[in-house]
């Protein structure tokens, strides 16, 4: 039995003075193995050429297609229509600036985040191309990779109670990033330096512990654990700073 799917899609083009925010309905016959990528592309090409949304890799790797799918942030490319009811409501991610319809400007947000947490290995060493690489334990490399798997899709930010209330909150994505560098022996930043970035209300102490971030993460990153560990580390650093013994 082929289902007829009804898509209720948020529409608004902020560049068009005549555009007002509203919902449009599109009807589509479901086909086997249909994902939201297949469905939305079909709607745009066959029903409304102006429909705006973002897909890039369409394979769950790049993080471009996050949107709110029946009330829950997720990647549209890895959402199969067979797992959804006949009626599907699609909204753009909150928190991020709207580009149009389902498309939001994650680029500006994430590039500011990467600058703020200084998301790179800080070292005073100089690269010498003629010598063998420094050794690393494989288990540690895999542990770092586990946190490095984040695709900056924005789902954790969109689902975060704090991020929805205050614009300066760094979000689970940034806290996870810092946890990744703390774990990496190549990064020579001190406890104090990390504390300056995330030991604040904009950082780890702004987290209310609702943990929707972990629930919606399409890469199933261990955000709950990382936020817990980071909170403890930064708490200790705060205590040590009281006694002037922080490194």
């Amino acid at each position, binding site marked *: 039995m082929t289902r007829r799917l009804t898509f209720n899609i948020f529409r608004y*083009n902020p560049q068009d003075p005549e555009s007002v925010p509203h919902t449009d309905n599109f009807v589509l016959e479901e086909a086997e193995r249909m994902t939201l990528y297949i469905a939305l592309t079909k709607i745009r090409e066959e029903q409304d050429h*102006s429909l705006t949304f973002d897909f890039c890799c369409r394979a769950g*790797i790049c993080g471009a297609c996050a949107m709110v799918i029946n009330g829950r942030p997720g990647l549209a490319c*890895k959402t199969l229509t067979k797992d959804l009811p006949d009626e599907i409501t699609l909204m753009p991610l909150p928190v991020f600036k709207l580009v149009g319809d389902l498309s939001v400007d*994650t680029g500006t947000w*994430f590039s500011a985040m990467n600058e703020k947490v200084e998301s790179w290995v800080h070292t005073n060493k100089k690269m010498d191309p003629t010598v063998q*690489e420094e050794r690393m334990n494989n288990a540690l*490399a895999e542990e770092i*990779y586990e946190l490095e798997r984040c*695709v900056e899709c924005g789902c954790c930010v969109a689902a975060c109670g704090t991020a929805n209330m205050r614009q300066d909150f760094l979000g689970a994505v940034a806290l996870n990033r810092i946890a990744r560098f703390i774990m990496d022996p190549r990064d020579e930043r001190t406890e104090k330096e990390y504390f300056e970035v995330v030991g604040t209300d904009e950082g780890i102490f702004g987290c209310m512990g609702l943990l929707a971030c972990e629930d919606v993460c399409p890469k199933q990153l261990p955000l709950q654990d990382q936020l817990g560990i980071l909170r403890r580390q930064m708490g200790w650093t705060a205590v040590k700073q009281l006694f002037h013994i922080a490194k």
Partner: protein
Amino acid sequence: METIYTDLLSIGAGLAGERVAVEAAVAGFDTICLSIVPPRRSHSSAAQGGMQASLGNCAMGQGDNPDVHFQDTVKGSDWGCDQEVARMFAETAPIAVREMAFWGIPWNRVVPGKSTYYKGGKQFEKVEAKEKEGLITARDFGGTAKWRTCYTSDGTGHTLLYTMDNKAVEAGVRVHDRMEAISLIHDGETCMGAVARCMKTGKLRVYLAKATLIATGGYGRIYRETTNAVINDGSGAIIALDTGIVPIGNPEAIQFHPTGIVPTHILVTEGCRGDGGTLLDVDEKRFMHEYEPTKAELASRDVVSRWMTHHIRQGKGVPSPYGNHLWLDIRHLGADHIKTKLREVEEICNNFLGVDPITQLIPVRPAQHYTMAGVRTNKDGAAYGLKGLFSAGEAACWDMHGFNRLGGNSLAETIVAGRIVGIKLVEFLKGYEVKFNTQAIKDRVAIDKERIERLVGCKDGRENVYAVRNAMQDQLMDKVGIFRNGKDLQSAVDNLQVIYERSKKVGLHSNGIGASPELSLAIKIQGMLRLALCVAHGACVRTESRGCHAREDFPERNDGDWLKRTLATWKEGDVLPTLNYEPVTKVIELPPGDRGYGSTKIIS
């Protein structure tokens, strides 16, 4: 018109573009990357398997060195590559890998002791040396004599791209994302930058630069079925071709992969077949052993793709709402094996197909995968024809891949070429001043503004841009695909010329205000058709088989007549590209010979 000046303008912020940009920024030059997506969403991230570099740290890589890597690369290219470039590449790859380690890549490392691995469904044992513990390790990939592919689990492209963008942020490279270059500004001799369209607001902007780099990746999306991201529509190649001066090298050199899942054509790894997976047809019967009695499913990428296409043409495909396909069967490998050794395949099937590969068949068919073709450059990355224009990565025809790229050499090219071209580009910038010709800038902006007005106002017609694109994709997929022959190729050229005329009558069905995805496609549709004609015409004229270019009517590799590279340019007003040729390589270190796999018929 808003105008921005910079020393280096990189069109593209994937691995190659950002690596060049980092080199320039570290040297103190003002550097801007344009990207149609936030940089970390670039298609570089999708390369999961790894990158080749002859470190020789792991047990199965013992004795490896740049000489062996060089030979594998030249053989892989079917002697279509520039050997000087392949040599530089193989020598630099180990340095580039170590540099990325220094910048933060969590490369998988050597774990000493015994471990097992699978080949052809059988289990083998290897022992890693104690003294190599903690050095960067490597895995096996097709077409290589040694295990040489460095990796981070199943996300090598992802970690490389994130680390590279981290480095770019640190170095002060500015990325203007959702900004698409729609033309190059030049006066016939010198490139002065680009006109770009903001994909947030729809506004045009002029970027003036001393040096401009095209690093926009491949153009797989001119094909109907491709493993490429939706952004890989060839915009960089198009603006280069539109100059009328800069050539596309070997436009006909296109690689296909046997197992894209249907309908989205996301890749499932060759490891499925390597471990003993089989291909089945509509009757759920194996067929590869009938065509290739000895190797069956384990024949090389191009050979398997060809027979799959042939078998579908024989009416043995499985009908579906997305067209005919075949089945990949890995059920007999068992849950244990699939859940550990083919975990990524299990995830792709469950997430993107709703298919459980432990109990169900996987729908697959061959799909376009890689463009060896690209903006033709010299060994320094400088484009032919225009001073101040450069290119690197998949967008370029540098040309280390010739007519076939080896697995693991694409990621490697991005950071190796990025490093080499970056260093050369810095040398160029240090001794170079450019005069900006305001007339050329004004003229270019006027042309682009008018193009957009005509599209939005439907001044030339109301052809549906998606219908035109689909018609183009069908021609390439069906007639300029895996199997090629003179009759089909000529028919494709003829039909593409008709579709090209249709593309000139495209008009928007929406208002074109703001981000407008329809306008974005409409602006480049004519360029896509010109590019498609370069591919089809180039393939039609090349009467031999070499690497991925497989002619049914000319099955031999013909070194006597065709040991040369196609250079396609497009003169304004023409209906076909102009094809010129040059020798594939100035330096011959490894004389043409037998690859040791694939077709062995060679005319010397």
